[in-house]
């Protein structure tokens, strides 16, 4: 967790990710946490810790405890003390009380800590536990590994990205507006986060699908696709008016154009290296 190794570390604000069917764990959304109640929200839980107490606790822990338990309290092969993040005693502790009792009676060797120091160490340990257990809090340790030159070649060659995108047009400045993980999400999925835009807003999302509905009479209507089931279809036409038809089999005929089709076609073909290279290339488009 805080063993941040490597080069530049990109911190991505992580919002509360609501459990979902697909891939719930991390969110790239920069929006403030919301949704579930405060008690259930990992982000809120971390905020509940007094940062000053956590830092004091970290400092005391480093001085008095880390030689046996390691600075991040997880122990390990070269450390004689147990892992305190998974420690049942610490997990069952409330406000340092059980930790204090253990230090007074059960801990060997005896450690002389003031009551306030124990409280601070408790805050530090509980904060670390909460971080480890709350995936919505995780901070990406992303470091760009791709080759920008190779990415540019892919962009204009195998990937065919240049058929829809231009580094001096729609992608101009994309590297300034987005960090690596956001760029990679845009490359793979065409969107950030879960949605593609519902097409319901006044200005429909660029990624919303468009549909052409051909009636039995031959009359056609086109617009942003709002809803398509086996039984009905609804579009918002170019005047902003919603229109619906019942469907029976393939009548009326519905033809869909998906602006993300290029992304969809690439997904099964991508290598991870190609995505990393593309991200490195897009990062240069300032």
């Amino acid at each position, binding site marked *: *967790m805080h*063993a941040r190794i*490597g080069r530049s570390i990109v911190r991505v604000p992580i919002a509360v990710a609501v*459990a979902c*069917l*697909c*891939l*719930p*764990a*991390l969110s*790239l959304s920069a929006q403030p946490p919301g949704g579930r*109640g405060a*008690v*259930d929200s990992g982000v809120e839980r971390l905020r509940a810790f007094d940062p000053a107490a956590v830092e004091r606790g970290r400092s005391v822990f480093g001085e008095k405890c880390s030689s046996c338990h390691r600075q*991040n309290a*997880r122990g390990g*092969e070269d450390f004689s003390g147990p892992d305190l*993040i*998974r420690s*049942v005693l610490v*997990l*069952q502790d409330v406000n340092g009380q059980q930790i204090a009792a253990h230090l007074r009676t059960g801990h060997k060797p005896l450690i002389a800590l003031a009551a306030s120091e124990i409280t601070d160490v408790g805050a530090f340990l509980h904060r670390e*536990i909460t971080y*480890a*257990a*709350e*995936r919505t809090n*995780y901070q*990406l*340790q*992303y*470091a*760009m*590994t791709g080759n920008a030159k190779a990415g540019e070649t892919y962009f204009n060659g195998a990937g065919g990205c240049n058929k829809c995108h231009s580094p001096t047009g729609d992608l101009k400045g994309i590297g300034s507006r987005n960090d690596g*993980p956001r760029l*990679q*999400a845009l490359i*793979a*999925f065409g*969107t950030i986060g*879960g*949605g*593609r835009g*519902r*097409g*319901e807003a006044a200005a429909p999302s660029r*990624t919303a699908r468009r549909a052409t509905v051909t009636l039995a009479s031959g009359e056609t209507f086109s617009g942003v696709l*709002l*809803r*398509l*089931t*086996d*039984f009905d279809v*609804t579009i918002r036409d170019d005047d902003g008016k919603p229109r619906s038809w019942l469907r029976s089999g393939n009548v009326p005929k519905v033809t869909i154009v998906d602006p993300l089709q290029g992304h*969809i076609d690439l*997904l*099964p073909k991508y290598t*991870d290296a190609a*995505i*990393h290279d593309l991200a490195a290339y897009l990062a240069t488009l300032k």
Partner: protein
Amino acid sequence: MNKMSMLLAVCSVALPIALLAQRSDPLQPARYPEAWPTHYGDYSGRRYSPLAQINAANVKTLSLAWTYRATAQEGDTSGGEYHAGDPYYWGGPQATVTIKATPLVANGVLYFAAPDHAYAIDARTGRAIWHYFWRTRGGIHIGNRGVGMYGNLLFFETPDCYLVSLDAATGKERWHKEIADVRQQYFCTPAPIVIGRHVIVGIGGDSLDVQGYLESYEPESGERQWRWYTTPQKMGEPGSETWPDAYSMTHGGGMTWLPPTYDPDLNLLYIPTGNPNPVFAPRSRKGDNLFTCALVALNPDTGKMAWYFQTSPHDTHDWDSAQVPVLIDGQIDGRPRKLVAQAARNGYYFLLDRTNGKSIQTVPYVDFMNWSLGVNDKGQPINNPAKDATVDGTLVSPGSATNWPPPSFSPKTGLLYVGTSQSYGLQYLTDTDERPEGYGGGAVGGGGAGGREAYIKALDYRTGKVRWRHPLTDGRRSAVRRRRFSKFRRVRSIDGRSALACRTPRDAVERADHVHARRAAVRGDRRRRFVVRVHAGAVKPTQWKSRAFLIIIDRY
């Protein structure tokens, strides 16, 4: 039926399964087709009902019979281990009720649960019979799959991991037992399954590397009869060779959050186990990590393992194998066989001999997967380490080919109906410590171009071949698909009838038509509350005395 006679009717199921009376018996589902006495209807996990009143021809004519609004307020009866001033651990009381349960049906009463709540409702009128409220100590309130029943006794689990026994007639608590420690990050969602004099309970919680186990309790006294740990407890025990050391093994996860199925002739229960821990960061758990992500056959009298088959050796993608093991009595190469089938979250369909766990078939049921290098000679998928989460991200598909919403199997068609998804995600490693903990990483995506096709697929149980597929289309696919998707699946999962209706794509369309009609009927109700709706069919009265019912739970 007045309330008194209703209570009498409830009391008439107040007999142990062995003596079980007139109205329901999970061992004889065909004899009492109107009952739904276990989470799966019977013990097989097929979720198949022989009732034929509601069918593809008349499903359109269903209309709303009643609505019951499940509230989060204090119930008629209550219990709990929370005391004023106590801290809440990892969660707390919820202001709204989320229903993910399959209701049991016995003698005209629906019994179901939600986190911290249990309810009994008159199935014909929607009138509440009782509502029980549990004062929680915490735990992640993600859901509850429902109750188990033994005669007149009900059992359900709470998010803070207590097993609570209620009197089915009154909703009064008989006893409760702590089955896991909420302070260690366990939380509990499963529906207990009652097998003879065993209340089988599983647990959940993979946030902080605790160990999974399955337990059995005596239904009358609440005494624990046995506990089976998912992972070996000491080096040298069978399976310990698949872990680097005892420390990783006893913090290796393997939760038991899906109710098991059961074969009474073999006297074996089949429990599918959850993913290993740490979830996305496997460096401290090299090896296959038995018996996580496995299908395990246990003797319900002793908790001893008869055999196991690991469906995801060394999982690194958070793909619990907690999908329903469906018991099928089928024919392979012209010979009758006792089989168990599972469409797993990793995208593979598994068919095993359920007497010994030997593989018969392992085949992908999604169009594309890149996490697996193929299948080994035991029929197990081979994990591709290049697709493990990395700090710079790996593109992984399927994201989660299916999940806990259960499939259905029709013995008439020989098809297993599964809700599937072909999504993509970027998986990132966030914990590079030599001793990673918790999830250690996660996935980004599933939206936009990554939220690819969701289908109902019908698999031939013998081969796993996709006989037909029906896309779950919606213009707001990425934003709303999940809701519609789960709605459809839940319809299937609760009403075994629906599987019968889905013999062809056209039949599936009929099913969807019903969903749509229902939605139209309640369009005015936009408050985001959770309700139970029962639809009465305009069909000939035979069973249920007067009307046929289709029971659907959904959120709006």
